[in-house]
């Protein structure tokens, strides 16, 4: 079997007015691969994530995705119906703030079941069963299935968001600072869980983070962004242990080691 990339981003450009946010970004993502995008705030990494997901339009470039049905779709020009369908099924998006990625007024079970219901699953018992399985997978006590996410801790909300995304077994999950607002001990647990789930479900991940520790632990490969440009890319340990670009060296040397 000849392996093909799952996603090929080619020459992606995006400006806000005269302010370029992504400049000629090109990369590939392979099945099961975890790609970290690092860089300081304002480097364009979140914009890139949103552009890939079609949440913001792009000025030029292509976002070629190979679907589960083995068709190549340019998400930048695809029919909106198809793009939205893919985002609900084969893609996931984990937001930094759980409140942006969850329905805070609906129970944990409903949050997990939503994507399945959107796909037309209409058996309450099965939906409930699936929700319970996923709560277990992300270490949320099953008896909280009918509780509202707002009664959950920050870490639990984030885990619920992950379950809500993974329930349709997506092939790509985009994550924007998934451990951002969490306490260090809570972060560790989430990172471990993410690592495990990514491995178990062989899902490809693009994770945006400014935390090089998170990048080291999660990502196979890194891209360093600065002022909208990818200044350096490579294997995670290569990039962190032998940084070549001046900016990468600055990033790596700025980390407090414990």
């Amino acid at each position: 079997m000849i392996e093909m990339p799952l996603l090929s981003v080619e020459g992606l450009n995006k400006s806000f007015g005269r302010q370029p946010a992504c400049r000629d970004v090109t990369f590939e993502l392979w099945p099961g691969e975890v790609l970290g995008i690092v860089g300081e705030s304002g480097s364009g990494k979140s914009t890139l994530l949103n552009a890939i997901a079609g949440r913001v339009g792009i000025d030029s470039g292509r976002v070629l995705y190979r679907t589960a049905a083995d068709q190549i779709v340019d998400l930048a020009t695809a029919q909106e119906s198809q793009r939205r369908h893919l985002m609900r099924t084969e893609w996931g998006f984990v937001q930094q703030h759980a409140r942006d990625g969850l329905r805070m007024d609906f129970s944990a079970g409903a949050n997990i079941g939503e994507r399945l219901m959107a796909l037309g699953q209409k058996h309450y018992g099965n939906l409930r069963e699936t929700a319970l399985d996923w709560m277990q997978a992300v270490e949320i006590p099953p008896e909280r299935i009918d509780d509202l996410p707002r009664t959950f801790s920050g870490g639990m909300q984030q885990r619920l968001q992950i379950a809500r995304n993974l329930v349709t077994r997506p092939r790509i999950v985009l994550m924007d600072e998934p451990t951002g607002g969490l306490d260090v001990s809570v972060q560790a647990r989430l990172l471990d869980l993410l690592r495990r789930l990514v491995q178990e479900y062989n899902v490809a991940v693009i994770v945006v983070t400014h935390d090089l520790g998170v990048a080291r632990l999660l990502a196979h490969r890194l891209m360093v962004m600065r002022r909208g440009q990818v200044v350096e890319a490579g294997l995670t340990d290569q990039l962190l242990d032998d940084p070549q670009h001046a900016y990468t060296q600055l990033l790596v040397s700025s980390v407090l080691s414990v």
Partner: protein
Amino acid sequence: MTLQQDYAANAAQAPLEGYNFAFLDEQTKRMIRRAILKAVAIPGYQVPFGSREMPLPYGWGTGGMQVTAAVIGGSDVLKVIDQGADDTTNAVSIRRFFVRMTNVATTEKTRDATLIQTRHRVPETPLHEGQILVYQVPIPEPLRWLEPRETETRKMHALSEYGVMHVKLYEDISQHGHISTAYDYPVLVNGRYMMRCSPIPKFDTPKLHMNAALQLFGAGREKRIYAVPPYTDVKPLDFDDHPFEVERWPEACALCGSHDSFLDEVILDDKGGRMFVCSDTDYCGERQAAGHRGHMAAPYKDEAAE
């Protein structure tokens, strides 16, 4: 009757001095009729229209009244109900308004009416071809509770992204053990558009399905008109293992003994006394006239006179 004759007849039934027939000017009526035609052509789709100020506040049925005003003709026989009753304030006010503005004949008999404006009920007596049922709608958008952005809900309608509607029903079951949504039950019209039935009890929801009458929905404040043409498929949402069900009552109507109608609970005293009676006053009265009796019914007039 030709259109010309119809206009002439309308003009002859001159309303109050200085007002056009049926209150709205002819241009406005045409605009609303165009919206209605589009709504009929695309069952369940919400057509925006330029809602006018009516001599009632929003929330009192201004949407329904504009639809009624746009379709009413001098030869129509009008029935107006509020929660099934012909004699409540809202129904009486609207009926009187149209009588003053059109001089049309009115009736309380569902069977005899050509045009029925309703708030929150569908008459028990089956409608027949040629009749028009106009619903007053407070909030037309079925997706509003899960998506506040109008641009997004329109997109969801355009792309038939309705799966998430089940989330609310899921919540019902998880919290109450059954689908507890009791009114304004979401339906799929003609296999395409998700629609709110206005706040009718879910008991009435099946009546929309394959109804012989034309059903028009007007939302004045939200400026939307939508329609279910005669004999259109209307399917309530449900789960495979929690199918759609209408409510049932432990008793029959205390006045007419009906087991098949929507019953209102009436509190009789402060000692727990209560009775159930039909919410549709016309239906209940007709049954009583036909000799049906509930356990608390007074003897019929004729019998009493003897």
